[in-house]
């Protein structure tokens, strides 16, 4: 067996031991060492060289990155998640036929979808979704994310929140908690447009705060333009389109002149 592979395998088993102990500092440390070691394997993306150890190397590399993704969720680092996922993705997309599909594939893809939803990157969410085969949509992890997106788009926020009880995988809880915050922002945005005013108690209920203090703090931080008086929250509506009283003369003159110029060219 290749000595480099042996070394990585040993290091990885130490990583897994630390991971099982929830010793995340050691994990992060070992992971960066592992990643450096992985760069020395020629069979990994993007070069995909056909070496005798290719299958073994690809498998262990995929396993390492899968753990890296889960680790990033546990240490609640979204940027690390994105980086690790990007590195992992080629193993799912381009290694078909070289190594068998991983059992972790759909949970992690679903996790990524959820992350995009939390960060309100809906366009990317759909771009990722298009990459999945039809059969994948039946998978509970993917389905969970897809249904969340639907409820989210519809505005059925209650359904989004109640989905937290039915997470298909323990790692999903972190993102579901983040999603609750996204939902609150959405609700605040909707309320601003949908209501003229609301009593403080109602606002607290709608925005899911447990105390008035939290509500006041939230308004002060996120929506300083809202007004609180007489026990109610008054939303400042965006200026509506006023019927125009003035003719925009300069613009009209410019337009007319340009028509005249063009017509002159034609005649």
């Amino acid at each position, binding site marked *: 067996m290749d000595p480099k592979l042996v070394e990585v395998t040993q290091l990885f088993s130490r990583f897994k031991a630390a991971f099982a102990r929830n010793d995340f500092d050691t994990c992060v440390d070992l992971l960066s060492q592992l990643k450096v070691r992985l760069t020395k394997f020629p069979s990994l993306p993007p070069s995909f060289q056909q070496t005798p150890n290719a299958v073994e190397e690809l498998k262990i590399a995929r396993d390492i990155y899968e753990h890296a993704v889960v680790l990033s969720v546990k240490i609640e680092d979204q940027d690390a998640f994105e980086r690790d996922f990007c590195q992992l993705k080629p193993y799912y997309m381009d290694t078909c036929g070289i190594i068998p599909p991983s059992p972790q594939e759909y949970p992690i893809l679903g996790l990524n979808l959820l992350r995009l939803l939390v960060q309100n990157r*809906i*366009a*990317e969410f*759909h*771009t990722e*979704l*298009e*990459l999945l085969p*039809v059969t994948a949509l039946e998978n509970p992890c993917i389905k969970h994310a*897809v249904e969340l997106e*639907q409820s989210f*788009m*519809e*505005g*059925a*926020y*209650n*359904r989004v929140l109640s989905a937290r009880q039915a997470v298909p995988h323990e790692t999903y809880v972190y993102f579901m908690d983040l999603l609750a915050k996204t939902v609150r922002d*959405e*609700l605040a*945005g*909707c*309320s*601003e*447009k*949908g*209501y*003229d005013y*609301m*009593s403080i108690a*109602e606002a607290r209920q*709608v925005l899911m705060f447990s105390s008035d203090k939290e509500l006041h703090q939230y308004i002060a931080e996120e929506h300083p333009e809202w007004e609180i008086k007489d026990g109610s929250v008054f939303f400042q509506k965006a200026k509506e*389109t006023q*019927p*125009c009283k003035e003719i*925009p003369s300069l613009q*009209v003159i410019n*337009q007319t002149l340009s*028509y005249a110029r*063009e017509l002159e*060219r*034609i005649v």
Partner: protein
Amino acid sequence: MPEDVEMNDSQPQPAAAPPPAASTLQHLKEIASVIEAGSLTKEVRRISRAVRLTVALRRRLAARDVAAFLAFALPHSSEAFARLSSLLPKEDGSEMDVDSAAPAAQVSIKHGLPEIEIYCYLLVLIFLIDNKKYDEAKACASASITRLKNLNRRTVDVLASRVYTYYSYVHELTSSLAEIRGTLLALHRMATLHRDELGQETLLNLLLRNYLHYNLYDQAEKLRSKAPRFEAHSNQQFCRYLFYLGKIRTIQLEYTDAKESLLQAARKAPTTARGFRVQCNKWAIIVRLLLGEIPERTVFMQKGMKAALAPYFELTNAVRVGDLELFRAVAEKFASTFSADRTRNLIVRLRHNVIRTGLRNISISYSRISLADIAKKLRLDSENPVADAESIVAKAIRDGAIDATIDHANGWMVSKETGDVYSTNEPQIAFNSRIAFCLNMHNEAVKALRFPPNSHKEKESAEKRRERLQQEEELAKHMAEEDDDDF
């Protein structure tokens, strides 16, 4: 969707076909002389004409015609001749072409022109694809690409772009598109460096098609946004580009822009490209539905598209009524069609539009309605329909779908009066954009006019010229006077 690769190029045009008296070989020779003339005078237009003429001949090509033409056009000692001849299926050569001996219009061409060589590659490639000899076609295409990489002549560009198209097409037919992505990217870079705009256009489309074939929307968009843009040279390529652009934008939820691209693609596409137009229309219908518009009935009744668009017609109907149950039934009924069209995920997105339309209908018909009634009318089946309805209504208001306010304390929705749009600047802006469109169209048309170069000058002598100028001057003066009279 193999139809759209072909588009109109493959449609044999019976009207353009020459009288049957002349043999295919004779035609090929004529085309060769057109190419030669184009090459010598450096007129790209003639070469495009040669390609068009070839397409008209396509149906009638036989192995022996092609073989005889190769023998005629290429020097026998050349590498290209040996390679191309070996790719052609062997037939008994006993029946040597009688027509070639016919003295009627004997054409002879100079050997060794790269245009002719590439044309031979193209001809063999088309022939092999039409005869379903894909492996040979692949070999031929790869050989011609290798040859093309060493050529840098603007007159070859037209032929080269056709070769690229068939190169990609044959790989699509054998579903090995992923393999050629690297080659296409290299070719695109080369075309960019050579300022071969037609080649860039063609290759960009082929690459986009390649990515979209595997649903790689992200890569497609990254390439598209970074590739150099210029005014389109070929209408077909521009149509394709618009279609791919529309698809990418649809996936990325930029519906307004997507609609514009898709409708433009459908309008610009030639009438013979039916398959392509059907595809454009399907996507355009969905995008319009996603935008909350209802496409007119005439869209579905277009000639030759009625059957293909039928599933989308029923879908539109369901969205128009705003009935979730009906929508679900239609989506289920045509699930296989939508999967084949790869529009399934888009249909899933439509669900919330169905709710929106239903909600809009309610908001138009009632000035005040309780949230419980809304939930009932929309058939929201959840454990807490009123709360769901409230947040759905709030979101619809924020997104501008309906104009209303919610009274939380009383639990009802109050619709606002719609304002008079003519009291704003809106009509003025719309009018301006339409005028600008017409003027632009006129300018484009003027630019597109083409005159044969120097045709009117060659014949006139110095004396005649002076005479003509004088006449023109008089005429101008006359007109100026008339103008003065008018005022």
